[in-house]
C-alpha cells in the first residue's frame, strides 16, 4: 500500500500543470469557472489546442495520434484540467467511438475517421437511446435494411447530446428484427448531411437545448460504414459503455465544484455570518468533502487496477452511483449558498451574448441551472438504478 504517486507521475503532473497554465485561454477559463455555456467555437478551440500539443486523445495508441496514457496519467490530466477550469474535451468521438473503431473497426475505417476526430473535421454524436429504449437500451427499434451496397435507415434517436453541432452520428440500428433483442443490432456510422436526417433540439430544465432528437427517414448509408459484423452491434455497444465509464466518478469535476463552493461560502453571509462559519452549512460542506476524499481514493483503486491491465467491470457502476451523488450534492449546496440570488434566470449572461453584469455575485447566475442540469448525471450512461442492478448481480451475486 502506497498512497504516493511515482516520481514519473509527479513529473507528468508538473508538465500538465505548466502546459495548462500557458495554454488555457483566460476567456475560456472564466466561462467554465462561472458555469457559462460554451459555444461550439469554444469547444473547437479547446480541441485544437489539445491536438496541437498531441494531448487530445489520451487513450488512443500513438500510431493513431494518441497519447497512450495509462489510467493514472489520464486521471492526473483530468484532475489538473478541472482544477484550472479547463473545458472538458468532448467524449463522443474521442472516448466513445474511437475505442470501438480501434477494437472492432476496419483499418480503412480507422484511417478515415480517427484523423478527422483529431483535426475537428468530424464532430460525432451518439445515436443510442430511443423514445422506447432508455435504460432498456437493447430495445432499439431504428431499422436498417440492406439494399445492395447501402443500408436504408428509418427511425428515431433521442437525448443526443450536442447533436445540433455534429456532422456524424454513430448509431445502434436493428438489422434483424426476428432475432433475440440483443442479437439483431448493428453499429452504423451515419453522415448527418445525408438526405433524410433531421435534428430537433430539446430544451431542458435549465433552459438550454443541450440534447436533441434525431430522425431518420429513408437515409441511405453506404454499407462500408458498418462497424464490425452485422448483428454484432450489442457487443460493441457494451464495449463502448465500459469506456464511457472511465472517469465516470467525475472526481475532478467535484473537486472543482468544491473549490467554487468554498470560495462562495467564504464570501456570502447569512445573518451577518459567513456561510463557511455557519455551523450548519459548514457541516454539510464538510460532509461532502469527506465523501469526496474517500471517493477520490475509491476511484484511484479502480483506476490503478485498470492501469495494470484489469478492465474495470462492475466497480465502475459503484463509481458512477457514488460519484454522481456527490457531484449532485455539491451543485445543490452551491445553489443553496446563493440564497435568493439563485432565483433569476439569466440566459443572456450564461450564453455570453450579453456584456451586462449578472444579477447577484459571481457564480450566482449558473448555480440553479447547473444544479438542474446535473440531475442528468444519475440518468444518462445507464441510470443509477441500472448501475445498482449491475452491482446486485455482478458483485453481490444476488
Amino acid at each position, binding site marked *: 500500500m502506497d498512497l504516493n504517486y511515482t516520481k514519473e507521475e509527479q513529473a507528468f503532473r508538473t508538465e500538465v500543470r505548466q502546459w495548462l497554465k500557458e495554454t488555457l485561454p483566460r476567456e475560456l477559463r472564466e466561462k467554465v469557472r462561472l458555469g457559462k455555456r460554451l459555444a461550439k467555437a469554444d469547444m473547437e478551440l479547446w480541441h485544437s489546442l489539445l491536438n496541437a500539443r498531441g494531448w487530445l486523445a489520451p487513450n488512443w495508441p500513438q500510431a493513431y495520434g494518441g497519447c497512450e496514457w495509462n489510467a493514472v496519467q489520464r486521471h492526473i490530466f483530468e484532475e489538473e484540467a478541472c482544477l484550472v477550469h479547463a473545458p472538458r474535451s468532448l467524449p463522443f468521438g474521442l472516448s466513445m467511438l474511437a475505442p470501438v473503431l480501434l477494437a472492432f473497426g476496419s483499418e480503412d475505417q480507422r484511417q478515415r475517421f480517427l484523423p478527422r476526430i483529431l483535426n475537428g473535421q468530424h464532430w460525432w454524436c451518439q445515436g443510442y437511446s430511443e423514445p422506447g429504449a432508455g435504460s432498456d437500451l437493447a430495445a432499439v427499434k431504428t431499422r436498417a435494411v440492406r439494399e445492395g451496397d447501402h443500408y436504408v435507415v428509418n427511425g428515431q434517436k433521442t437525448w443526443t447530446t450536442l447533436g445540433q453541432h455534429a456532422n456524424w452520428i454513430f448509431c445502434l440500428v436493428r438489422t434483424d428484427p426476428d432475432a433475440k433483442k440483443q442479437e439483431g443490432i448493428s453499429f452504423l456510422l451515419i453522415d448527418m448531411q445525408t438526405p433524410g436526417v433531421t435534428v430537433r433540439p430539446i430544451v431542458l430544465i435549465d433552459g438550454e437545448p443541450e440534447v436533441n432528437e434525431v430522425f431518420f427517414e429513408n437515409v441511405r448509408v453506404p454499407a462500408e460504414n458498418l462497424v464490425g459484423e452485422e448483428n454484432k452491434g450489442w457487443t460493441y455497444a457494451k464495449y463502448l459503455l465500459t469506456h464511457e465509464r472511465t472517469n465516470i466518478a467525475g472526481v475532478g469535476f467535484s473537486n472543482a465544484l468544491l473549490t467554487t463552493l468554498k470560495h462562495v461560502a467564504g464570501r456570502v453571509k447569512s445573518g451577518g455570518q459567513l456561510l463557511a462559519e455557519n455551523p450548519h452549512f459548514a457541516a454539510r460542506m464538510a460532509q461532502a468533502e469527506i465523501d469526496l476524499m474517500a471517493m477520490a481514493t475509491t476511484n484511484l483503486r479502480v483506476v490503478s487496477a485498470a492501469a495494470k491491465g484489469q478492465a474495470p467491470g462492475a466497480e465502475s457502476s459503484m463509481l458512477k452511483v457514488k460519484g454522481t451523488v456527490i457531484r449532485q450534492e455539491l451543485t445543490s449546496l452551491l445553489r443553496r449558498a446563493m440564497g435568493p440570488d439563485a*432565483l433569476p434566470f439569466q440566459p443572456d449572461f450564461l450564453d455570453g451574448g450579453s456584456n451586462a453584469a449578472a444579477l447577484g455575485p459571481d457564480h450566482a447566475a449558473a448555480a440553479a441551472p447547473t444544479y438542474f442540469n446535473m440531475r442528468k448525471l444519475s440518468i444518462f450512461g445507464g441510470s443509477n*438504478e441500472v448501475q445498482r442492478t449491475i452491482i446486485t448481480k455482478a458483485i453481490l451475486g444476488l
Partner: protein
Amino acid sequence: MDFNLTEERAMLRDTLRRFLADKYSHENRRALIASSEPYDAEIYAELAELGVLGAMFREDQDGFGGEGFDLMVVFEEVGRAGVIEPVLPAVLAGGLIAALGNDRQRELVDEIIAGTHVAALAQGEAGARYDLNHVETTAVADGDAIVLNGIKTHVLYGAGAQTLVASARETGAAADMAGISLFLVPVNTPGVTVNGHRNMDGIPSATVTLDGVRLTDAARLGAAGEGLDALEAAVARGLTAICAEALGAMEAAKDLTISYLKERKQFGMPIGKFQALQHRMADMLIEVEQARSAVINLAGNLDQPRDVRKIHASAAKNLIGRAGALVAEECIQMHGGIGMTDEYALSHFARRLTMIDHLFGDSDYHLERFIALKAG
C-alpha cells in the same frame, strides 16, 4: 377536531381547480413564460372574478376569507396548476396595506381584490439574504417630503406592479430591528426604476432602484420605524401561501410520476412493477402527507401569538423545503430524461419547488430559526 374544509372553502377549491384545469394548460403557461408579458392579464381578471383575491382578505378588509385555511385552499390549486399570475402579492403587499393602511390607503385593497391593481412587496436587498431586518435603503425627511434611496432586489412581480410596498430605514444600523418603515411607492414616481426579469420558475421578478424618490408623509404605511413586526406577520402569511403552493406542486409532480410508472415500459413491463421504484414512490407519498400536515399546522396557527406563529412557519418551511427537494429530484429521476425536458410539465413543477426553497428563508434558515425560537 375536524380536518374537513368548510362548504365555502370546498366550493372555492372545486371552482378554482375546474377553472385552472380548463384554462391553464401547460402549453399556454409555457407560451406565457416565453413572452415578454409578466403574466396573463385576462386570466388574472378571471381569477379575481372567481373570488381568488377576495379570499386573501378578511370581511372587515372587504374580502371574504383571509384565514390561514383560505390561503391554503387557494395556493394548493395555484401550485397544482403552476399559476404565474400575481396572487402572492395580494397576500404580501396587499396584506400589509390591509393590516396597516389608513382609510385612504386601504382603497387600494378594493382594487387589488378586483384584480385591477397589483402591489408588490419590495423587501429584499443585496446583503440581506433572507433577513427582513437587514435594510440599507434609507428614508430621510427633507422638509415635508420623505426621500428614499436604495436598491431593492428580488421584488416578486415588481415587473407588472403599479405600486410597491418598500421597506426603508429611518433610523439605526443596517440590521437593527427598530427603525424600519414601510412605504407605498407608485412605480411611476420619479426616481423609481424597475428592471424586470424572470426567475428560473417563470415567475416575474425585478430589481428596483430608488434614486432620490420623493414621497409625502401620506405614503408611509403604519407607524414610523415600526414596520418590522407587520412585515414579519405578512411574510408568515406569505410563507403559508408558498408552502401550500409547494404542496400543490408536489401533488401534481407525484401524480405525473405515478401515471408515468404505470405507462412507461422497459424490460418488457411497466417500470412501476419494479420494487426499487415502488418503495421510493411510497416514501414520497409519506413525505407529501407530512408536508400537508405541516401546512395545516401553519395555517391553523397563523393568528396565534408571534412566537407560536413563527415556530410553525419555520417548521413548515423547513419541512416543505426538504420534501420539495425530495419530490423534485425523485420525480425527475424516476422519469428519466423526459423529466428534464422543458416541454414536459414535471420540470416546471421541479423548478417551482426548488425555487420556493429560495423564497423567504430556505430549509436551513428556518431550521436555525426554529432552534433559536425553541431555545428562547
